[in-house]
């Protein structure tokens, strides 16, 4: 073997071994860092300093911070965390770096507002973010819709919700439902109908597949809640008339209370329980339902079913 060939072979072998070893070491390090008690820290929390450090390339830095916010929320949400300390600062940095990044207001406010573990449980921070977005993008009706949504869903503040929807409805090109929502809010309207309207608007007004799938999932959940309420009402009516509970849905059909055997939005029949309660057969595939689940049921982390 020529000396140069020997060197080539040896160097190549060492290179491959070192590459594999470094990857293995990195895995060990990753494991140590995950299991350690490292605290998440935002080393640079001032949007003004970050803006200067970006050398004018603020758009790219905003995209990076938005991705960090999404990743942070996703990781905490997956871990069923009850606190999201860095979420609000990350969103503040993102939106100050790029005040026109509307996606950060729309999603960010919905990350902040809901109670843990679905969100950060910071509705006031969400409102602040949404208002900052409106100040910088007054012609985007989605932001008013978002603000009204938070007031209604998280704070049940009908007056402010109505005001936000009404302002959004005045924006040229706004979805016509905003006007209806403003009116419904002003009347403290029926909650189920209102919620259905909101999710339908979310579905129709978004081109993002994830948002549409999320809206479909919520609409399915609302449908189940409504079905279960109606069916349990029929069961109690049947009991009043006959003095006993129905043994199945056919009894309700025979009594003329039901036209056909009811099915849930996934096409599966509902279960009529011996105590007269109504349950879905597959609660794991119907996230966000509040009725029709077995007692003590713990839902899995939410997953979005493909939209129809």
């Amino acid at each position, binding site marked *: 073997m020529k000396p140069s060939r020997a060197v080539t072979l040896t160097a190549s072998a060492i290179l491959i071994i070192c590459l594999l070893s470094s990857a293995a070491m990195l895995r060990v390090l990753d494991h140590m860092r995950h299991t350690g008690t490292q605290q998440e820290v935002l080393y640079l929390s001032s949007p003004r300093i970050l803006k*200067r450090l970006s*050398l*004018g*390339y*603020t*758009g*790219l830095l*905003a*995209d990076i911070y*938005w*991705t960090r916010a*999404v*990743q942070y929320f996703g990781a905490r949400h997956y871990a069923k965390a009850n606190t999201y300390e860095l979420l609000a600062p990350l969103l503040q940095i993102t939106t100050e770096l*790029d005040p*026109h*990044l509307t*996606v950060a207001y*729309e*999603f960010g406010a919905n990350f902040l507002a809901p109670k843990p573990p679905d969100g950060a449980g910071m509705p006031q921070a969400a409102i602040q973010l949404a208002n900052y977005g409106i100040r910088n993008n007054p012609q985007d009706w989605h932001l008013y819709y978002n603000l009204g949504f938070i007031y209604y869903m998280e704070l049940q503040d009908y007056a402010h919700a109505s005001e936000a929807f009404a302002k959004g409805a005045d924006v040229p090109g706004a979805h016509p439902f905003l006007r209806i929502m403003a009116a419904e809010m002003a009347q403290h309207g029926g909650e189920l109908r209102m919620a259905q309207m909101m999710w339908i608007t979310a579905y129709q007004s978004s081109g*993002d597949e*994830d948002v549409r799938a999320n809206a479909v999932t919520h609409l399915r959940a609302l449908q189940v809640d409504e079905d279960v309420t109606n069916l349990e009402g029929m069961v109690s009516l049947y009991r009043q008339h006959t003095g006993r509970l129905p043994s199945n849905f056919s009894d309700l059909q025979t009594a003329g209370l039901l036209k056909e055997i009811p099915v849930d939005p996934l096409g599966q029949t509902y279960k009529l329980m011996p105590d007269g309660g109504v349950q879905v057969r597959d609660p794991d595939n119907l996230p966000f339902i509040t009725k029709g689940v077995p007692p003590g049921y713990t839902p899995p982390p939410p997953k979005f079913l493909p939209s129809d």
Partner: protein
Amino acid sequence: MNSRITSIASNTFREAIRDRVLYNLIAFAVLMCGSAILVGQVSVGIERLVVINLGLTAVSLFGTVIAIFIGIGLVSKEIDKRTLYTVLSRPVQRWQFIVGKFFGLVGTLVVNTFFMAIGVFAALLWVSKHFQAADGWLFVAVYFIVLQFLIITALALLFSSFSSPLLSAVFAFSLFIIGCFADDLRGFAGGAQGIVHWLATSVFYLVPNFSSLNVISSVAHGQPVASAIVLANTMYALVYSAMALCGAVLIFERRNLK
């Protein structure tokens, strides 16, 4: 006279190509493909924005690095290799040498930017499936980036006409960074009083203003750029680079090359 400048410019262009400058396009292509594919997986709703922001930022920064690292060596390399003496022994004047070098490097950067811009548009088409009318403003952002290269190239040449390559690189990078802070400098000058106000104002007018040439973030959102701004930026970049080039010529004319 013009043919001499053209010859030096074309030789500078050829030399840059021989130096494998365009290899950066491979890194750029990988960056664009990677971002276009990966961002959709790790973020929400910013696929288009990332392609535009990352793409144009990369065009700007890659070009700036090339302009500085090649620009600082344009004169010193010719002196080190002693090829400068061969050139100047012919009927070529020193100013023609500097101007030719300038146009040669600018030409390289324009070609490089052209291919990178094609990459940005291709990635954008791949991500969003179709172009929008507002995407036309990206051309303005690319044009402003080219104007930025004019200034940086002229500055790199200015520094290389009297300094070593290392110091020239330090000066050029420093001035690039200060130029990115030009708007802050003006804000600082506005808030200061007395001599500090005059000093800060003077520095603001002296350093290149790259803030006004950076419209990447606004065009990414489809916001238009006023034609008056395009015209004013064009004039500014031409005047500033001509000023720096004149400085380079003046220094190089007086430089002792023995």
